[in-house]
């Protein structure tokens, strides 16, 4: 490992590999993921179902089921996350990171009011009743909820999904976290509501210096709201780089394929679909994880798993990154 400059990155994930317990055995969900995140930066973790993108952040936050095996190193401001004591871990979770989920409804106790949900953390840490209520109401307004007083008295089932997601964001903001992790925060929402929710997150990042890790299957969305993008496939990080450049000059055939698969709203044309279906880490072939779906695969790809290396301005895990540069750029340009 190279000597990191001071200050240490906010979150650094090195050579992460995770096996989850399945019955009596284990099954790999992540085989090779590394990335780092500086304070105030935003990263999009992009991948399809089963790619391991959610598991990556769960591992990073040490939120895995009992019996999981984790290899590699995860550091928070230089501190080894897996060496944290129980109480340190709890206070870290409680005060420095915030988690926003795809399904806010499942993550808010249905039998308690929104007010209860928002204030219980504060109250537990000794803040007075009136003060915590005021703070919660202010935050509800901050995330664009009018009439916060009424909302505080309502139960989750009385609120729409979009509203609940705003409540979730407000609850995360209560503790003024350094990092917000948003796991497909808008997948279940309508586009116009997605826009509002993304605007709130974007605003937090820009104006309050919160770092953001955004997990999504939508490369366009990630490109629009994050600084850097990491593309994950079958438990491996296959490409990482600045959002703009991944979006226009993606090198890995999978990132390019993802972009070309997405139907354009501005032009009608036949889509260049990637053949086959996305695979999970445990089903991945021994060589390059993408080899079975790749149009450019050669023998080397079948035999040897490529590791992440710098090519142009990106990091790419592809043996043929250099060869494909020209045509791939052309293809990507054609799609836009």
């Amino acid at each position, binding site marked *: 490992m190279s000597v990191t400059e001071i200050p240490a990155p906010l979150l650094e994930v090195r050579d992460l590999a995770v096996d989850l317990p399945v019955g009596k055995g284990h099954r790999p969900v992540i085989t090779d993921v590394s990335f780092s995140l500086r304070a105030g930066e935003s990263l999009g973790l992009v991948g399809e179902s089963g790619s391991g993108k959610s598991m990556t952040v769960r591992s990073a936050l040490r939120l895995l089921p009992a019996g999981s095996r984790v290899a590699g190193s995860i550091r928070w401001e230089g501190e080894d996350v897996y060496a944290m004591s129980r109480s340190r871990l709890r206070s870290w979770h409680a005060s420095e990171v915030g988690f926003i989920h795809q399904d806010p409804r499942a993550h808010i*106790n249905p039998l308690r009011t929104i007010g209860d949900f928002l204030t219980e953390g504060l109250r537990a840490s000794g803040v007075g009743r009136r003060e915590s209520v005021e703070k919660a109401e202010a935050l509800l307004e901050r995330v664009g909820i009018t009439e916060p007083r009424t909302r505080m008295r309502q139960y989750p089932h009385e609120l729409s999904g979009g509203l609940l997601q705003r409540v979730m964001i407000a609850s995360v903001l209560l503790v003024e976290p350094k990092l917000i992790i948003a796991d497909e925060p808008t997948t279940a929402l309508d586009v116009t509501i997605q826009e509002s929710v993304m605007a709130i997150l974007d605003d937090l990042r820009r104006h309050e210096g919160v770092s953001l890790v955004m997990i999504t299957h939508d490369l366009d969305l990630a490109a629009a709201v994050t600084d850097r993008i990491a593309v994950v496939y079958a438990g491996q990080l296959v490409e990482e780089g600045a959002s703009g450049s991944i979006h226009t000059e993606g090198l890995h055939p999978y990132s390019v394929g993802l972009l070309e698969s997405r139907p354009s709203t501005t032009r009608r044309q036949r889509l260049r679909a990637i053949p086959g279906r996305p695979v999970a880490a445990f089903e991945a072939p021994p060589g390059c994880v993408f080899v079975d779906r790749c149009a450019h695969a050669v023998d080397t790809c079948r035999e040897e798993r490529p590791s992440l290396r710098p090519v142009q301005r990106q990091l790419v895990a592809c043996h043929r990154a250099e060869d494909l540069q020209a045509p791939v750029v052309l293809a990507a340009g054609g799609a836009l």
Partner: protein
Amino acid sequence: MATPTLPAGTVTSTDDRAGGGPPSSGRALLASARRLAPLWRWVLLPLLTMLIASAVVFFALALAPGDPLAQALGSHPTAESRALLEAKYGLDRPLVVQYLSWLSGVLHGDFGTSIVQKASVWSLIAPRISVTLSLVAYAGVLVVVGGLASATLGTMVKPLGPLVTVVSAIGVAVPAYVAASVLSLLFVIQLGWFPALGAGDGLGDRLYHLTLPAIALAIGWGSYLSQVGRAALREESDREHVETARARGLSAGTVFRRHVLRNAAVPIVTVSALAVAALVVGATVVETAFGIDGLGSFFVTAVSNKDYASVEAVSLLLVVLFVLLTTALDAVHTLLDPRLRTPGASR
């Protein structure tokens, strides 16, 4: 019910809210009334159910084969003595009239006359009610305390888990009459700690006499409550919102109280309430086994003697109790779960 007759769907899952997973028996059982207006749901429907049930009991017994007067008439019945008795007990009137007069009598506290026992049914029931109630109350306390304590211990104290699992799995399968035999053998014959028969007089003596019967009665439902409670606690503590609460740094105790226990209350309350109702019926077996002269053993005697007036009266009492309990349970559910308060608001 000697042991729980409830389908133990709750043991494996307590969730039918989202339509995923096997439905919980308790919820499924009580879900049907939920779409109705409050007056219907809380008042009219239960009353109607009681009314129909009372009619079912009355007409079924009235139409039963065999002669209700057989015993009263003795071995050499004459037409005159029959007519006399029929007139005396009102059996010469049309059935519907008999039913209505019985019903109005019941509403005035008059449960008719037992032809077999030649006494008013109320005079036979009344002294026995307190015996059965104390037995059921005793057993009910054992069920709730024992069931909940073992469920909580089995969940919170990990090493105790397997023990609770095994004990409750066996306990739920032990019928009260088998438990009665085993308890008698151990504590009456071998150790001589408890009396063999009777209900005892005075509070202390009664508690002493009723201890073994109450345990025998409570074993099945207590074990069932323990299983249901544990499944509910486990399921609730696996929920995403509990994870959120933990990740926020709330203490384990707070999370357990405010999010796990509170949310598991619905199936636990359901089973507790149904247990109480079932214990009353189960008292028939236990009272017979321990020679206690209560409502249960009285009912068994009435059944075997074809003492229809008494059977009707006790059946009606039990049905009314059962309906009242299920209605109350529905009301408690509404209090426990805000989602049930605004029907149709959630999708």
